[in-house]
């Protein structure tokens, strides 16, 4: 298996708190990998370090895009640069552009694929108009993939909760990632929505060939879809392995059930 992301001795310290403590991790191309752990374990912080929202205190994150030979270090780069390299994420506390329409949220994700500059905006020449038309259509196609197209002209803030979570995914997808990081995508969803989400994630992997790393508290979802699971507790990686291995691991049971 080809590794597309490697995290090497990563630490993130906030004041006196080691939110992430020497974590090592690697993601296989085309896999669905889960990152689990109790509340406050440092999962979201790890996502923030990977996507450039935080600069890690030490250690490194490097990626190797599918089909590329050289791996490149991405830790310390700005979030937009990391996104352009093919990593997209969703947020645990939904961060949609709530006063923009569903369509516009996705269009923003396509921003850096477009070329129109200030002159284009002012002159509205044919190239610019065609590009705008194309981005609208492309965005609609992306919404279709996540089954959100019926909300296309709604304001993001007016969507039901589950749909907002899915819009987070659609927006991330619109940046054409090879690695998608999902932070608790099923939080607040009902069982039916969760099942749909499971389908969607599986489809993204099989049809779009997107590798997925997800944080999730819904254990049945995690056990169903992931091939490999990492478990963090108090910032430390305490276990990893297949769902079955992790389930039986005494450290994991202790972390979840307490002493």
């Amino acid at each position, binding site marked *: 298996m080809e590794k597309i992301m490697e995290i090497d001795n990563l630490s993130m310290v906030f004041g006196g708190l080691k939110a992430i403590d020497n974590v090592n991790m690697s993601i296989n191309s085309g896999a669905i990998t889960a990152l689990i752990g109790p509340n406050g374990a440092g999962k979201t912080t790890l996502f923030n370090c990977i*996507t*450039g*929202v935080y600069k890690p205190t030490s250690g490194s994150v490097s990626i190797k895009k599918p089909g590329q030979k050289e791996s490149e270090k991405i830790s310390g780069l*700005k*979030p*937009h640069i990391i*996104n*352009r390299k093919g990593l*997209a*994420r969703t*947020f645990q506390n939904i*961060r*949609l*552009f*709530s*006063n*923009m*329409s569903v*369509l*516009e949220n996705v*269009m*923003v*994700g396509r*921003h*850096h694929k*477009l070329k*129109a*500059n*200030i002159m*284009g*905006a*002012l002159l*509205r020449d044919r190239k*610019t108009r065609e*590009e*705008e038309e194309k*981005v*609208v259509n492309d*965005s*609609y196609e992306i919404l279709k993939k996540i089954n959100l197209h019926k909300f*296309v*002209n709604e304001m993001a803030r007016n969507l039901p909760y589950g749909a907002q979570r899915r819009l987070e995914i659609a*927006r*991330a997808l*619109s*940046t054409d990632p090879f690695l998608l990081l999902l932070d608790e995508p099923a939080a607040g969803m009902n069982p039916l929505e969760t099942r749909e989400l499971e389908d969607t994630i599986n489809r993204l992997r099989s049809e779009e060939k997107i590798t997925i790393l997800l944080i999730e508290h819904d254990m049945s979802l995690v056990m169903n879809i992931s091939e490999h699971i990492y478990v963090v507790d108090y910032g430390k990686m305490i276990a990893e392995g297949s769902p079955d291995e992790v389930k039986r691991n005494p450290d994991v049971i202790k972390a979840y059930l307490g002493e």
Partner: protein
Amino acid sequence: MEDFNWKEYLKDSFISMLWFSLLLFPMLVMKITVKGGMADVTYRWGYLVVIPVSAFILSALWKYFRERQQGGDKADKRGEIAALFRRTFIENRTVKKVSIISAILIMAFYPVFSGMYNTNVMISALIYIMLGLGLNIVLGLGGMLHLGHAAFFAVGAYTYGLFFKYAGQFFVDAGISTGWMFWIALPAGGIMAAVFGVLLSLPVLRLRGDYLAIVTLAFGEIMRMVLQNWGNVTGGATGISLIPRPWLFGINVTPRLAAVYIYYIVFAFVIISIITVSRLENSRIGRAWEAMREDEIACQSMGIDLVRNKLTAFILGSVWAGVAGVLFASQTTYINPDSFTIWESILILCIVVLGGTGSISGVILGALIIKLLPEYMRAFAQYRLLVFGLALVLMMIFRPGGIIKKVRKIYRFPLDEENDAAAEGQN
């Protein structure tokens, strides 16, 4: 309202009455005149009646309107009426078209049927519309609280002023009309403002909100102080005078004709500004700005370069101010640092906030109100700042979006059902 609490109501008003009486006593009741080094106090007891009575009435009105604004059912009904009003008068296309066309017509023929004084007043109002629209790019679109806009206005004006001061003789010697200098200064003023915009924004754009406001405010002051104190270059406090008016086919124009001519130049620029801002808003970059104002972290994580987008907004806004500065210098033919104080920046900010941040028609209305009212109501001129302050406070409470709230055009995907529905609606 049935459960209207009279006691509470009266009590609150009474307390404000006492409070204001106490507060204003030394200012209004006691009048101190200094004569020959001796302070003489006259008591104006009349005010002792006026203050509490007006404080009581104002406070009661205040409470009444506050409650009405928050009141449930009533507010809903009022909201409905407001929505109906909006639909019929503001969002209605025909009404919109007719009002825009008539506004343009009135403005286009304004100097024809008004005297030179009125034309000049309107020119400065138009220049402030430009300044407001420029700040609107920074504040309304870019979401940056910029309190040093007048500094870029100054950059433009002084670009022209200094260009004339140092190169004017050359033009005279070469036998070229100095009026040509205006046409060179116009782009140069914009470019200089852009250069200063870059210089300021490089360190500043990482800052947010309050910090940005403070730094830009300081920049405005620094600019003014440099202009004021670097006397042998900038002319110091006396400034630069006899700046040429724009060249007009070599005609030696009378001041009246010059005013008309400048009016049309400025008018053209206002139209260009309006088109520019509205096109920017509904473009790829406008979308990115909107997203940036909503959530910077999410925006960055979607691949948008915040610094670049902010820089673009900041520089565009500065260029606008720079061009407005050149126009200003050519209108007044005389500039000095007093025209570019902090107050000028605040005034432009008031125009944008009062009119409606992000709303083009709002900014235009704001500029007309703020520039024209004091001009034609001289009696109130000395209370100008007081009135603006009060208006702003009231605005923030009752209508935080400004007089004309921003309505953003939303990208819509043409759904089939919607087309059907529209077709049905027409039948």
